[in-house]
């Protein structure tokens, strides 16, 4: 789609885009190019000299069992975050779509966690689950469950998943609710007249019609689990114990900032860039289809 009416000026459009382009070049393109450049370099221990080593950093990464483990952790983490987040939000949205009374109040009370920073969500849940003083830990002990995420990897994973899902529910809920409300009521009424029960109506009519929203949210939630949960992890487990919660983004940060391994960290950055590009392309291809459904 193009505009019919255009203004003419030899310099004005350049002046208008200049601030954005300047920031984009200095803070996006330049560092991204550097990341690619460093990923082909090997630095000596003092960071004084570096030499071109081709794909050596990459092949070292894929031989590194820690890195491969981090891939598995990321996959598990994002699947858990995306699926449990979507399931809980869909249940709440379907219920909120049904009720007439108090719908706005429920909505308000469910959307505020969107405002909480991931790092703070992490701190809140880490406090509830704190091994010696946490209130939830105390309750779990009553059921005979020994909870200590500081030493047990699967419990650390559960903690970061819970904190991440808690923060993301509001977002998913809003989109599901909007999706549900845009489904024509006549379809559901017709099915009700034919004698279909509420659960049957949900699974055979509502859920298929909602699939564009669901796919969209699935991609968004995976992106969220890959990147935005950095705060949750850094504020709670810091990738531990024994790297049980070290997702890819956290490893880039850890290797680059804490372990000062420039080449390895940059190679990881480049791999992550490919993942983001794939996810973004997926997201855009999908959104184009969303409207046609």
């Amino acid at each position, binding site marked *: 789609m193009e505009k019919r009416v*255009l203004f003419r000026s030899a310099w004005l459009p350049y002046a208008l885009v200049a601030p954005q382009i300047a920031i984009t070049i200095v803070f996006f393109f330049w560092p991204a190019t550097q990341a690619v450049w460093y990923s082909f370099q090997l630095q000596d221990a003092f960071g004084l000299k570096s030499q071109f080593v081709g794909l050596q950093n990459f092949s070292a990464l894929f031989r590194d069992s820690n890195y491969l483990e981090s891939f598995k952790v990321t996959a598990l983490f994002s699947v858990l975050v995306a699926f449990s987040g979507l399931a809980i939000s869909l249940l709440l949205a379907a219920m909120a779509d049904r009720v007439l009374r108090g719908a706005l109040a429920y909505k308000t009370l469910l959307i505020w966690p*969107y405002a909480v920073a991931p790092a703070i969500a992490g701190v*809140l849940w880490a406090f*509830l689950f704190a091994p010696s003083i946490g209130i939830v830990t*105390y309750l779990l002990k009553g059921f005979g469950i020994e909870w200590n995420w*500081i030493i047990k990897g699967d419990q650390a994973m559960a903690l970061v998943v819970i904190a991440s899902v808690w923060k993301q529910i509001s977002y998913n809920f809003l989109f599901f609710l909007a999706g549900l409300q845009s489904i024509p009521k006549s379809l559901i009424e017709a099915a009700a007249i034919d004698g279909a029960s509420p659960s049957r109506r949900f699974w055979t009519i509502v859920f298929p019609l909602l699939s564009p929203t669901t796919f969209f949210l699935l991609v968004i939630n995976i992106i969220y689990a890959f990147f935005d949960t950095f705060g949750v992890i850094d504020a709670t487990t810091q990738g531990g114990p024994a790297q049980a919660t070290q997702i890819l983004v956290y490893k880039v940060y850890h290797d680059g900032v804490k372990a000062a391994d420039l080449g390895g960290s940059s190679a990881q950055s480049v791999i992550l860039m490919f993942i983001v590009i794939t996810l973004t392309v997926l997201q855009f291809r999908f959104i184009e289809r969303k409207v046609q459904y």
Partner: protein
Amino acid sequence: MVENRPWLTFFSHAVLIAGVLAVAFPLYVTFVASTLTLEQILQVPMPLIPGDQLLQNYSQVLGAGSTTGSRAAVSSMLVNSTVMALVIPLGKVTISIISAFALVYFRFPLRGLIFWMIFVTLMLPVEVRIIPTFKVIADLGMLNTYAGLTVPLIASATATFLFRQFFMTVPDELAEAARVDGAGPMRFFWDVLLPLSKTTMAALFVIQFIYGWNQYLWPLLITTDESMYTVVIGIKRMIVGSDAANEWNLIMATAILAMLPPALVVVLMQKWFVKGLVETEK
């Protein structure tokens, strides 16, 4: 409502109430912890009824910070967070709206390239270029400055596309009429486009306020000076050991202070918030 099923309605309310309570539970415990003494929190289980230390804890963190972890006062962190939360949306709205205006209402050489350059930034989140971006900021001498905290975050493809999308829906007749009346492009921008864009700007501002306030990785990288900490970073810095070694009463008071401004924005400006959220994702 398609039909009347009292049990299902009851069930719906029950699920929603359970959901609301589960979502609110961490917030409630945080609030209670922020009104207790440290000794009260350390006894297991901690009390679940607010104590009487509210003023004590909050004035302690606002004035002096924690005693074991970071000693920066939370009030100065709140100022830093406010600067980030206001400058980022203002900057973003400004540079995005003018570049969208140029892309929609002008034809000029390199337009395609510029459009593509803006689009690609979607695929380069801070997380994937941590070290090199840090180096750029260090080389420019922008570590521990407000400029370093805000400027790199104000370029945004989503905001530019949002305005572009909106300008596409503005009828061509308006621009035609403006031209017939002899108005230049900037006159048209100020007097016609800007007033029409008010709601889009407001929605974007609300979303970006929360985005700016909640930044974590970026300030973590480029602030080393306690006086430049934002409140989200400050909380992290107050946690020094595991479990009982922390001053949880002060940490929780800081957490409440950190959550309050963006939560109020979401609740009070719900309409703009929902609009902004839904539209920036299109």
